[in-house]
């Protein structure tokens, strides 16, 4: 059996993803999250984990340096990587939404949209027939309408608290998001047995959780 390399996303999704793996019976080392080590081997499971920025997980998997990854659907939509999306892990649910200051309309001349997701945002407005200017930001997207950089933002919303705290309201929901198990196309064939085993164990766990 060859070793599986798994790219895990840092931050929000990580804990839920690790908990899911543990529920499925995988012995993950407890120090995975706090550890300063970038790569951690778990010989008893014949697995190797590394932590990456959530936006980069699909990149590692596409290039085949990770066989498997856990990534939000938002990342997959934005990055359009050539990977297999095999399983909806049903964790970290949230959605992509259009938000802005209350009671405002889009600037008629050149409405500006600030976002971390330029591909998704531009596709969404294009499909609606709106011509907009997309402004790529790397964080604190909520700031953009407050400071007057943009009319709207496109961002991830989970509870809506961040929006409320900043006095923003949601205008439209674009798409629901959960985390997905993604697989490199070559690993999917060359390590089919190991990956199928992982997928079926996780599928079982997810189905059990859905029933509860």
């Amino acid at each position, binding site marked *: 059996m060859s070793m599986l390399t798994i790219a895990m996303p840092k931050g929000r999704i990580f804990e839920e993803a690790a908990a899911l793996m543990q529920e499925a019976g995988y012995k993950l080392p407890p120090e995975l999250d706090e550890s300063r080590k970038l790569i951690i081997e778990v010989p008893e499971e014949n697995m190797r984990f590394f932590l990456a920025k959530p936006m980069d997980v699909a990149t590692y998997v596409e290039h085949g340096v990770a066989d498997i990854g856990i990534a939000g659907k938002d990342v997959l939509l934005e990055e359009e990587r050539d990977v297999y999306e095999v399983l*909806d892990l049903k964790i970290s649910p949230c959605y992509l939404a259009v938000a802005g200051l209350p009671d405002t309309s889009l600037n008629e001349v050149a409405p500006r949209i600030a976002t971390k997701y330029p591909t998704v945002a531009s596709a969404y407005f294009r499909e609606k027939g709106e011509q907009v200017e997309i402004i790529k930001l790397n964080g604190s997207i909520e700031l953009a309408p407050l400071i007057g950089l943009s009319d709207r933002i496109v961002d991830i919303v989970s509870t809506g608290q961040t929006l409320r705290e900043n006095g923003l309201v949601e205008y439209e929901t674009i798409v629901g998001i959960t985390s997905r198990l993604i697989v490199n196309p070559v690993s999917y064939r060359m390590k089919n047995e190991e990956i199928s085993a992982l997928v079926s164990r996780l599928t079982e766990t997810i189905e059990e959780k859905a029933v509860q």
Partner: protein
Amino acid sequence: MSKLLMFEKPVGMRDTLPHIYETKRKLKEAAEGAMRSWGYRFIETPALEYSETVGEASAILDRQLFKLLDQQGNTLVLRPDMTAPIARVAAAKLLKERVPLRLAYSANVYRAQQREGGRAAEFEQIGVEMIGDDTISADAEVIALLVSVMKQAGLEKFQISLGHIRFTDELFRQILGTEERSEQLRRFLYEKNYVGYREHVKNLPLSSIDKQRLLQFLSLSGSINCLDEAAKLVEGSAGAEALDELKTVFSRLQEYGVDQYVTFDLPLVSHMSYYTGLLFEVYADGVGAPVGNGGRYDDLLEKFGRPAGATGFGLRVDFLLEALEQLEDEAGVHCVLFSNERRLEAIQEAQKRRAAGECVLLQDVAGVKDVDKFTETCKSVTFFVGKATGGNA
């Protein structure tokens, strides 16, 4: 755009430096040798073709084509693959001479890359096309040859996944009824989005049995046993025929002794509309993307006015190089270093060695600044320097 630096190349274009060139040459020689020994004849076609003809007939998406205009205002494309140009030549000329036709190529193709500049936009493909033979024997031959090429190229750890688009189409047609709905589902497979496929199936107005059939289809991969599972999902003769073709091709590959490299993957959709029958992808250990693919494309030749069945494969030379774990050492060069007074001796020595098949460089010592550093790059050195008799180092 900022001012270009003098050493820059257009995005996605690559240089091949000497030591990589050597490895690539050996790999290509081995692969080409295998193809030639199976009776395939090599051809070359121009790098530029008309967008309206070869460009449109090609399997490569329009947005990946490099386009330019000729003096008359026609849109040209840099060929994005070799299959369409070969179909053009075959239809126009070669099919009049001999059918079936066995052709091979080793050529650069061009595909504009949308993401990440570093990805190759020009790369070499090596492959074969078998035109005018509709039998399963032709499909089996092409796959067996593919295995032989991979082995000759020095690769051992690779795998070929086989699918059949007519099975997929038939199953979808039976359950969904319309081509439009089938295409939606096919697109999920093409995009490798199994989660989206499952979601989509769950929301279709179908009986739970039919939904189950569509969901089970996703798991039809692995050993030949999955074909028996597949047979339970589909009714009627068209689907069964496709499965028979897969079984037959597998038993032919057993006869060739190469079945250990082949597995099945029925949900494999490597192109939205190009392939018409058996299709396959090739994976090699250590490379993140398929190193090649192929299959039957019976509709292509018709576009060039001469309908004929065809099958073939193409391999990416750059990916094969990546799969080869080590690069060749640069072929050793022997250095004959001389000073002016012994030039004749040196030339004779070099000629003698060259005649014996060695690579020999002849270097005037006056032309070298740092003799030690220079000779370090050579396999061995003979000195004809000064008045003394020549010595080896």
